[in-house]
């Protein structure tokens, strides 16, 4: 008898707790709603940021946000108003990414949005922003489909076709490669896309038989010995292995441990401390990226590099922070050109971006909203990333 009574008592308590949580939640939401349903305070311009801060893409998202915050510290004002950053986490999940963008637009009333690391997350957020006519600037989503059919999505990074071709030309031209092997992460659109464009370009110059091996792995794998042994047995002149710095760091180090000495090539994701840490003692590792300290593409690159060192003295500069930095200053630039913080005006200003000087190079946005800009090739030498060459867009 007692136990039944107790159980009922507990049920009631639980219900009350749940309901009060809900009430508090709604209350909180309502409070916030009341605040933000008003027009944004006249002296503040809001920039929304949706990035993966937790989940599988968390590392990349956090690096990007560091860059954005750095830019915000340096340039806290535009049009005479203070810029407020609203950073929300999309948990590396698509439904969360769509929610996040919707939240930024209809609750926070942001004027422009920045994000997201990971093309699939950007593709989830894109349509929401398009419906609301709020422009989004992507930092590092390289999948060509992101800006497709979306007039409100822009990006400051170059896309897979350009980067793949650059690396192929570098492999054939400078490194004198006649054959190549590809190791790709089948779960990463970035890796698959880049590989396919590299393959196309490489085959076009060296013939159909020039790709001697193409092997796959999955995100999260740690053991690449079998794939690398397969590649080693085919004896290619170069290996192209674009992918996440998480897996690639281990992959490249393992390749060297297995005695593979040929050059290994990759994409811009490699410009990260996490990658460098794994491969410090090795050489002949090349990748395309956006900027360099030795040959600053623009004066903004120098500013960015100096300020980054000041703000994060114990961290290495990475490509994502630089791209995050650029999206922020590009957003500010567009607002200044538009002369207002109106979303549609910002979009038009963004679409007209030409020869914009960012930390990652001189950016011109084409009719799709994709950046055409100079690629930099770097290599790993003496435990550092070292400038190697510059490739201009045609």
């Amino acid at each position: 008898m007692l136990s039944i009574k107790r159980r009922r008592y507990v049920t009631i308590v639980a219900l009350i707790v749940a309901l009060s949580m809900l009430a508090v939640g709604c209350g909180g939401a309502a409070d916030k709603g009341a605040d933000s349903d008003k027009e944004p305070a006249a002296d503040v311009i809001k920039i929304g940021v949706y990035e993966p801060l937790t989940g599988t893409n968390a590392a990349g998202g956090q690096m990007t946000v560091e860059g954005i915050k750095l830019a915000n510290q340096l340039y806290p004002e535009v049009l005479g108003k203070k810029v407020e950053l609203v950073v929300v986490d999309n948990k590396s999940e698509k439904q969360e990414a769509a929610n996040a963008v919707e939240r930024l637009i209809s609750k926070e009333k942001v004027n422009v949005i920045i994000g997201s690391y990971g093309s699939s997350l950007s593709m989830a957020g894109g349509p929401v922003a398009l419906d609301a006519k709020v422009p989004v600037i992507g930092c590092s989503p390289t999948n060509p489909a992101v800006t497709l059919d979306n007039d409100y999505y822009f990006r400051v990074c170059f896309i897979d076709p350009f980067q793949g071709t650059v690396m192929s030309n570098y492999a054939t031209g400078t490194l004198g490669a006649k054959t190549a092997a590809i190791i790709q992460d089948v779960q990463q659109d970035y890796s698959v896309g880049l590989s396919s464009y590299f393959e196309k370009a490489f085959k076009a110059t060296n013939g159909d038989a020039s790709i001697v091996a193409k092997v796959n792995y999955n995100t999260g794998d740690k053991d690449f010995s079998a794939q690398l042994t397969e590649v080693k047995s085919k004896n290619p002149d170069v290996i192209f292995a674009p992918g996440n710095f998480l897996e690639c760091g281990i992959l490249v180090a393992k390749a060297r441990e297995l005695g593979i000495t040929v050059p290994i090539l990759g994409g811009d994701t490699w410009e990260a401390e996490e990658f460098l840490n794994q491969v410090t003692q090795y050489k002949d590792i090349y990748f395309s990226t956006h900027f360099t300290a030795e040959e600053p593409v623009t004066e903004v690159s120098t500013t960015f590099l100096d300020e980054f060192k000041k703000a994060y003295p114990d961290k290495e500069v990475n490509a994502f922070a630089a791209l995050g930095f650029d999206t922020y200053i590009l957003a500010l630039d567009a607002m200044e050109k538009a002369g207002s913080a109106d979303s549609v005006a910002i979009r038009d200003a963004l679409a007209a971006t030409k020869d914009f000087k960012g930390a990652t190079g001189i950016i011109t946005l084409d009719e799709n909203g994709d950046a055409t800009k100079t690629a930099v090739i770097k290599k790993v030498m003496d435990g550092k990333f070292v400038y190697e060459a510059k490739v201009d867009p045609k």
Partner: protein
Amino acid sequence: MDDRKNIKFILNIVLLLIIGIFLWWGQDNLSAFYIRILNLSAIFAILGISMNLVLGFTGMFSLGHSGFMCIGAYVAAILTMSPASKEIIYFMEPIVPVLAKVQWPILPAIIAAGIVAAIFGFLIGIPALRLRDDYLAIATLGFAEIIRIVVTNTISITNGSLGLKNIPSVKSLWVYWGIAIITIIILKKIINSNWGYAFKAIRDNEIAAEAMGVNIFSHKVLSFTIGAFFAGIAGALMAFLITSVDPTMFRFTFTFQILLIVVLGGMGSLTGSVISAVIITILMEVLRVVEQPFDLFGLLQIPGLPGMRMVIFAIGLLLVILFYRQGLMGTREFNWDYLLDKIHSFKKRGASM
């Protein structure tokens, strides 16, 4: 007693009307953000109750839900995308010609998504349901992962990891909640039918149920297939809500999120799953507050802590499973009889006074 029946019938109609009015009002007056959250909670409600049918009512610990969602989402996406966008999006490898020209309306595509997922559920159920408890859990988790990996690798059908985009967008509360309510009604009917009694008998004691003449295996497969059907439908709705899909959406960690809803709501209560689906989806947004940096009375700057939300949910899951295993509703359902009895006894008391 006939009176009671009539009253209940009327009450049901009134309830549906009220929900209808709310949806009609909400569609025009709520902001896009609230509509999106409500739509997402409808999807999670469908996922919750379909998993509850398998886990809470039939007692089978299946972790394969994300796999069936994946199938449903892809079927719906491929069937409804326009041929023009298929041509552009499949830029790595063209889509197989059979599917290139297909373009269905949305409702038939949703049903097709459910049916295809159900077929897979049936095919997977036949071998997998010979296992039970943790073996079943790990085998179904395995099947879900296999589905995802196959989807990632069959580029000419699914476009692989590049995912699909330009799926027609559906924003109407009516579609999501309409389908959720139909699902609730169908599952309620099933649970109160002979099938449902057999499911519960299997859950409570398999051997006793068999002795009573219940065909254990076929009922298990039946329950599993129905669960897969609705998971497929929820997957399709997810595709229309987000308008793009890719395989990484459907990792097995997604199933854990549904499990959270089922456990918190009460294993064995449809009402509980629906309520907890709505609460959790809303809390997920509300709790963003804990991840934002904030000032403590202007004295202390506390930086934002990404991941705090999930810590709270994990603790909630543990507390419920350790101290209050029935969850919100236990095996109880929302029930007019209960309310009517209350009113009745209240009236009586009033009359006697």
